[in-house]
């Protein structure tokens, strides 16, 4: 039984068929690359897994249980975290609030659950420090951070709650070379801790460096799904552009 199983998933937006019967699976502790041209449906597929979209047809199983009826809250509770392509940060909130967004620490005051800002700040600081992220203060407003720093906040948020699967949608797009190396190291660390990763990236060298399996999506369908050591850069490229 795989950790994640996507079975024959369809999703349309009006007349646009973004996903046309996608089937693939992810093993625990493995890194799976999802590649494909712009508009192939990669982000839509991932958002369908995280509950942002509900599939029109098909099923999604995680840890052996159906999750395609759950909302994003329920799916996060099961242990799936996603670093969204647009990062999904609240730009007017500070770093700590963003890291704990949806999972605020509260304390009981006369039966009222009040947000424990202090504890969230210190926990967020620990997380940022652990990741070696260059964010000066967790009280900084997210919208005022650089692209790379915002990325670190989104990554810190995904890793704070002990996920079993981390989905990264173009996590290196806004990063400098050294920071990209950092993300790749992070993926290796996650794997070594038994945490599965799905990586969406246009940088095939990165994909080949850290992923165990490469799934190619074209026009909403899986057209190739091979172990990394059984395929080649050329083969993947031709699958992406549709030459094969």
């Amino acid at each position, binding site marked *: 039984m795989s950790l994640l199983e996507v079975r024959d998933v369809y999703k349309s937006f009006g007349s646009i068929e973004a996903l046309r019967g996608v089937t693939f699976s992810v093993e625990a502790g493995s890194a799976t690359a999802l590649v494909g041209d712009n508009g192939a449906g990669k982000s839509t597929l991932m958002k369908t897994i995280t509950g942002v979209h509900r599939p029109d047809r098909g099923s999604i199983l995680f840890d052996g249980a159906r999750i395609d009826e759950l909302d994003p809250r329920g799916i996060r509770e099961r242990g799936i975290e996603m670093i969204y392509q647009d990062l999904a940060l609240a730009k007017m909130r500070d770093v700590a609030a963003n890291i704990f967004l*949806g999972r605020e620490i509260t304390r009981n005051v006369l039966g009222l659950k009040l947000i424990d800002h202090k504890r969230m700040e210190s926990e967020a600081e620990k997380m940022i420090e652990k990741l070696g992220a260059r964010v000066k203060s967790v*009280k900084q407003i997210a919208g005022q951070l650089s692209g790379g720093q915002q990325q670190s906040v989104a990554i810190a948020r995904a890793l704070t709650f002990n996920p079993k699967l981390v989905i990264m949608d173009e996590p290196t797009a806004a990063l400098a070379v050294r920071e990209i190396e950092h993300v790749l190291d992070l993926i290796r660390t996650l794997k070594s801790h038994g945490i599965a990763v799905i990586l969406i990236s246009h940088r095939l060298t990165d994909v080949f460096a850290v992923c165990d399996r490469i799934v190619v999506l074209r026009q909403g369908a899986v057209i190739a799904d091979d172990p990394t050591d059984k395929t080649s850069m050329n083969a993947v490229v031709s699958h992406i552009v549709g030459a094969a």
Partner: protein
Amino acid sequence: MTAAPRAARGGANWRVRLTSGVAFRFESLLVLAILVVAMAALSPYFLSISNFLNILLATATIGVLAIGATFVISSAGIDLSVGSVLGFSGVVGCLMMSNLDLPWPLGVVACIGAGAAAGLVNGFLITRGQIPPFIVTLGMLGVARGAGLVLTNGLPIYGLPAPIVYLGQGRPLGVPTPVIILVLTAAIAHLVLMHTRFGLYTQVIGDSETAARAMGVRVERQKVYLYTLSGALAGLAGLLFAARVNAGDPTAGLNYELTAVTAAIIGGTNLFGGRGSVVGTIIGALIMGVLQNGLNLLAVPSFYQQMAIGAVLVLAVWLDRVNRSEGRRR
């Protein structure tokens, strides 16, 4: 990592310290001070305890509405129906107490309940019907006003039970009851907006609805709650208004939505959502109260006052724009 936040805090100037935690716009306090000084200079009647209590009394109704507006606008929504819902709720409550002779606590519940029900309808139409808040609440502005007029044939309902009249006209320890209710409401609202998930999610929805949804915030449900809250507060304001004039007037609260939205915006609640401040809103409501009171004392006809309020709204938004493009604010 420990030194950095401390440095940031130490570097914060007094202005930031004054407004941190309550997040109101410092300039609004300045405007209020200037306005008070100006009015004191222009009118010999302005500077007196009794006049200040008058201002506070007038501010109470608008203030309660503006607190609702603070929540709704923080979520990048708008509720244009609050003035009409105020009138409608007052009428419903008064019908219960005067015509049906029901006990006054039921009248209180009816007032607030009628407002909440109107807000609930707004919330459902906005989320389930996917109709923009602007349109839904503009429609409710018409419907609620019309309903109030239909229920009363357009005539005020006079004569409320003594406890209700006390609610509007009483002065425990010299302070008008509506002012006490405003202060209590504001204190609770401040706590909710700044220190609970409800308040945080309200602002995050206005900041980025997609981020809120992706992180598991139940956006639709939250919006229904928000418009219901706004309606319930309009109901409370309707009760205060009716209690003050000892009548259920179907034309009560006409154009109040304009003043309420203006108070919230002047106080620093972001017009496009993401950030709100109850403390700022109360300062904004006081600005509107002082302005109206001053114009009354100066015998400026009420038609001109309406123009002044509209101008203040546009001016506040424009100043915010200028301010922001200068990069002085985040």
